[in-house]
């Protein structure tokens, strides 16, 4: 599936939930379920520090595709990261660099990408793009 298709799939999934509470509960479950980064990659270098929570992001190129792993100490952030990884991981640098991120807005969690939250999530998205450009340049 393309990055766009995966996002559409997630939007459909979340359309099942009417209430913010159900959405949050789903995200919390995603966050809890997913051990998303190896301890050895939870380094200062991979740390995106915000006022609210900490986010670690690791990227490596495997067979022409970028594999992202990440983690956060806050569970809601971690749940959104799990979704983000589902969207972006295992795609080529070119696909990632050219993609638009729209699902967070459409599932009604736009505030999580607002600079006022300063929670590292916005920086994480930037970092994903930077990795894709860097890997593209290398290729």
């Amino acid at each position, binding site marked *: 599936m393309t990055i766009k298709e995966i996002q559409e799939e997630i939007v459909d999934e979340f359309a099942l939930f009417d209430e913010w509470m159900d959405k949050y509960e789903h995200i*919390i479950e995603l966050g809890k379920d997913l051990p998303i980064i190896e301890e050895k990659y939870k380094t200062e270098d991979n740390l995106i520090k915000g006022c609210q929570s900490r986010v670690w992001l690791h990227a490596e190129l495997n067979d022409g595709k970028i594999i992202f792993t990440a983690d956060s100490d806050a569970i*809601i*952030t971690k749940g959104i990261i799990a979704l983000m990884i589902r969207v972006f991981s295992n795609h080529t640098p070119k696909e990632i660099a050219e993609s638009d991120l729209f699902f967070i807005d459409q599932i009604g969690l736009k505030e999580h990408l607002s600079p006022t939250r300063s*929670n590292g999530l916005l920086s994480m998205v930037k970092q994903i793009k930077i990795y894709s450009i860097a890997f593209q340049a290398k290729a």
Partner: protein
Amino acid sequence: MLNIKKIRADFPILAREVNGKPLVYFDNGATSQKPQQVIDVIDKYYTFQNSNIHRGIHTLSQEATDAYEKARITVQNFINAKHEHEVIFTSGTTGSINLVASSFAKKHLNKGDEIIISTMEHHSNIVPWQMVCEDYGAILKVVPINDKGEFLFEEFEKLLSDKTKLVAVTHVSNTLGTINPVKEIIKKAKAIGAFTLIDGAQAVPHKKVDVQELDCDFYVFSGHKMLGPTGVGILYGKEAILNSLPPYQGGGDMIKTVTFEKTTYNELPHKFEAGTPNIVGGIALAAAIDYMNNIGIHNIEAYEHELLTYATEKIKQIEGLRIIGEAKQKASVLSFVVDGTHPSDIGMIIDKLGVAIRTGHHCTEPLMNRLNVPGTARASFAFYNTTEEIDIFIEGLKRAIKMLV
């Protein structure tokens, strides 16, 4: 006794809904809400009075100047400064501290000198001192705290020496609510000839402050945390000391005469007020002070203490919750962490229930490191809050914890 219903009616924002629920605003430590009386002053100023001050010959300028200088006197009386020219309008607490740091260092700071702060300082009372220490080869010393979040007075005494040039301590901790024994701190510092600066940003909205009684050299605070607008703050300084310091910024209003060869500086307070100030900010700050005076600062203090006691009792019953900051003397700040949850998760969930609290490190990262927490959730109360709102907050908190753990 306060007539809370009547008071709340003065704050239009308290009637709004957030995420479909009535707003419960417990982020007063970050900024307070504004009463209609303050909003009206801002509106009136721009509608009928707007004019530049101090230099105009025309009526509007005279009126604006009078209102601005009258505001200075209101502030003077509010903190009981000896002279009105000891009240300097700045952009806020941070602006005030940077002014002192810069001018004080130029005049007094030499290699090997020491500046003492405490572990619970806000970044605004850490970074400016770090910057001048680096520039002048001085050393920053930090007074430790105990696990309850109290200033360790004996350790402070040990740090004092003939090298100490300045002691800069917060009056009330924004993160913990701790009220520091600033009068005793000032006395000790003075005894060895050190200057003192008190960060009163979290104190003036909640308790009576008398700068002559404290006998501090500098006292700083912000307008927006005490019902006034953002972008205006106060630097109080003793006349003789302010006179001895070099100006901070150069520009209009702070000069007596300018030639290309030599400039002479204006007298206090104008020497430290370069450029067109936040005129409406100063005037509206005075309106905020009038509002507080009408209610009575001692009434505010007593009522907020009740709110804190009520909330503390309630929150203590929640399993796995730990209050961060349990000093004997506390202002109306309740900081906490909950086992197995992150503060930001709690904040996000209760926001959906209409409750506004602060989460994170509260711009006190060194304090968070000392207490070994990534951050806290913080409810900070103002006199327009109620016990009913605390009940809503506690219920929301329980619901959030249930979702998260």
